[in-house]
């Protein structure tokens, strides 16, 4: 996992890794950002929960509707007022909305 490479994504403010339970394991913060390690720790925990919920919803949706294409989940993002967090697996990136390239960010978290 190369967090510095993640920080090269457009608008990246932070990059982080977390355990399967959501414990923050490593992080990089852009200097000057309002984000703190404590917020990243909470973000990581919410990301694990949201990915699990998304997986459950995808499975249920496919079973009920017969529509395929959701599973396996390749990532989840919450779009805040100023920044978005994009996560998949055990890593996440926070990107500034103004500069965000969601495609590239989802691709980056899928690759790792």
């Amino acid at each position: 996992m190369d967090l510095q490479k993640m920080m090269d994504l457009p608008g990246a403010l932070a990059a982080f890794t977390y355990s399967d339970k959501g414990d923050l394991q490593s992080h990089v913060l852009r200097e000057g950002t309002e984000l703190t390690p404590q917020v990243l720790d909470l973000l990581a925990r919410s990301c694990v929960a949201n990915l699990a919920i998304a997986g459950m919803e995808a499975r249920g949706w496919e079973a009920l509707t017969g529509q395929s294409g959701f599973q396996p989940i390749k990532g989840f993002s919450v779009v805040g007022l100023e920044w978005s967090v994009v996560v998949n697996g055990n890593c996440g990136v926070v990107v500034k909305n103004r500069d965000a390239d969601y495609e590239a960010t989802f691709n980056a978290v899928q690759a790792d």
Partner: protein
Amino acid sequence: MRIVKQLMAIPGVIAAGEYAYRGDRFSYEGALTDEFARMASIMCRANTLSVNMQSEIFDSFSENCGCRPVQGWIVRGAQLTVCAVGNYFAFIDNRDELLNDVMTIMRAKVGDVQDDLLVNLYARLGGDTKEALY
């Protein structure tokens, strides 16, 4: 419905819709049945409220950290992606650059979601929002 029509005009957008606070009023266009659109509306509303609750927790630890109020969320599936901004949602194909285009249009057309999400969502139904909620 104007935003829904604009979204549906983009190649690769499978379905798009708008839902109200209760999750039981919705409108949509595209490849969904009425029942599936109803389910999608309820799912989007539930997820939106959930991520808003989470953002309030983040905000209590780091005020004005830039996450609140939440504007929307994205679930990236293997071949499909669901985007939700405000009380609009879109099911789209995973085509190159489509996600960025759809998010740009949704953010621009829906506008910034205001601070009180429930009021914001409920206001779409009309009537006295405060009386109905509080």
